[in-house]
């Protein structure tokens, strides 16, 4: 990343803000902090931020209002809202008013960092073409796959199944979703066909430190051993 990414944290709880500042500065971001809505609206006019973390419970202006005003000021920076409430209506409201992501307190710092990173990437418009997981690297631009320094030989369909699994590592990917990657929708696919590809991938990933687990009735899951 050539330009240093700037992050704005709008949070009235000084102790939490200190922690967040420390975390994101440790990640190499330039971080600003304001503790009320008014300041936030002022500062976004002056600084181009790569992402904003916005607490909904602000002392002066309600966080949702701040969000709406920012969007009406044509601030297109990705915004993640933080709240001590976890009602789905809050989440829906926030997302409706232009928030890009939502996290309720308390959260795992790592998760917040991961989401902010994702937001920044999304804001830049071009996703990283290299998908990597442990030893495995998938270059989405060229279609090449590597295990460490070795080239991993994959067919087109194997690669597309693996790509889907890697992009959702640690989650169970439903069979129909994987089948859609591999086959055209109008193909009538026997359920076994997908298993054939999974079987082949398992063999090819044997010494990669990755494994594909079957969750019967639910789908497949890729994880690091």
């Amino acid at each position, binding site marked *: 990343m050539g330009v240093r990414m700037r992050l704005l944290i709008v949070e009235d709880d000084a102790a939490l803000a200190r*922690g967040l500042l420390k*975390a994101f500065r440790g990640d190499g971001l330039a971080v600003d902090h304001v503790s009320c809505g008014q300041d936030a609206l002022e500062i976004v006019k002056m600084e181009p931020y790569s992402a904003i973390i916005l607490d909904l*419970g602000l002392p002066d202006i309600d966080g949702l209002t701040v969000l709406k005003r920012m969007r009406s000021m044509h601030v297109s920076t990705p915004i993640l809202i933080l709240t001590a409430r976890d009602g*789905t209506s809050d989440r829906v409201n926030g997302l409706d008013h232009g928030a890009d992501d939502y996290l309720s307190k308390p959260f795992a710092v790592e998760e917040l960092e991961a989401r902010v990173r994702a937001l920044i990437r999304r804001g830049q418009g071009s996703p990283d073409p290299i998908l990597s997981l442990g030893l495995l690297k998938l270059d989405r631009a060229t279609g090449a796959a590597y295990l460490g320094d070795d080239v991993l030989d994959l067919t087109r369909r194997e690669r597309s199944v693996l790509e889907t699994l890697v992009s959702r590592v640690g*989650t*169970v990917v*439903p069979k129909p979703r994987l089948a859609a990657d591999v086959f055209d929708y109008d193909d009538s696919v026997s359920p076994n066909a997908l298993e054939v590809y999974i079987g082949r991938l398992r063999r090819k990933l044997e010494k990669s430190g990755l494994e594909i687990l079957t969750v019967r009735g*639910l789908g497949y899951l890729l*994880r690091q051993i």
Partner: protein
Amino acid sequence: MSTSGQGYSIKGRLLWTLLAPLCVILIVLGVSGAWLVEQNVESSSDRVLSGSLQAIGETLAMQEGFITLDLPPSALGMLENADRDNVFYSVIYRGKVITGYPELTAGRNAIYVDGIRFRDGFFHGVPIRIAMEAKLVPQLDAPVIVQVAETTKNRRALVYRMMISLMAGELFLLLVIASLIFFAVGWGLRPLAALRRIVEARVGQPELEFAQLPLQGMPQEVLPFVSAFNALLEHVETTFETLRRFTSDASHQLRAPLAVVRTHVELLGRRTDMPGEVRVSLNDISQAVKALQRLIVQLIALAKAERPPQGEPTDRFDLVECTEVASRACATRALDRGMELSFETDRDKLVVHGSAMFAGEMIANLLDNCIRYGFEKGHITIRVSGSPARLEIEDDGPGIPVAQRDRVFERFYRLPQNSHSEGSGLGLSIVRALGRRMAATVSLETPSGGKGIKAVIQFQSA
């Protein structure tokens, strides 16, 4: 409901207040009735006796210087009765019995006047009734006294029979009135019994119900009580609601400081320059913070789930899809514990009543229990079947003793063997409360394999 205590019975009170005076009235009636009976029996028997006496007296005559008496058989015959009373007679002239039973004398104060006199006496120690008439016979200077007597067996028997009938009648009346009171009170109190059933049905409910008691059909005497009770219900509901909101508000307020703690603990955990004991402490704190966070999240979830269903939209959702999504979300944690997770269904789609969000939360809580308390490398099976719509989540873990299966739905109740794990003790309470909001029932069963526990949710098919 216990009926002990210092209570008294309305029936008892009514019976006492009505029956005591009634008894007095009946005694008075009985005594005067007895007197009347006695009088009537005496007078009618005396009339027969006097008829007999007159029949004898008519035949008195003087013939050739002798007093003659023609005793017609009918004269004494009319005195015959079923009780076989003995009949005696005597004719006395100048103080001497000239015919009849000599023992039947005229008595000490025989009055020689016209008309029939009656008196009581004894004949060989047996009580008798004596009728006496002084007859003036021509040619005689003194009146001839004719006496007819009979033993009083028949009279006594008659009096006795009539008294028995009287007593029986009174007793019957008493019983009829008592039972009428008994039934009338029961009938009058029947609305109260209905009221009691309504209230009792609520006692059995796991969730408090504050709906007002019905006023229609209540007797006027009970209405003020029911109204007052309804006012109390309303008051309790408001208080309860406030308390519930407090739980929810307090939980929200707890989140903010907890976020601070968690953030800083996690940041500290990233430092590599810490001595081992600090790292151990930090790890303990981190675990505790996570447990606390979970508790708060569950408390909020429970407060939300227990919110009274206010015009809940009668939504429907696809149980198969909902179960798949919720199960996938929990799969990673199960796999991390080395558990095997599988989902079985014979349906592509199963539409049921309720909210997919609630159902998802129920499934997440049930799976969380399986993962938390099941054995490592155990199996978790999730099943969805239709008609009736049914979701089963079973594991082969330690299970729950049958005796405890009701209690585990109570808030904060934990099985003794789990008291040290970091579960919140609220999961099943949330499951049941959410189920109730969409008329789904939750029960615990023993899986067919005999090991572990199976949670069964029955949904309302749409």
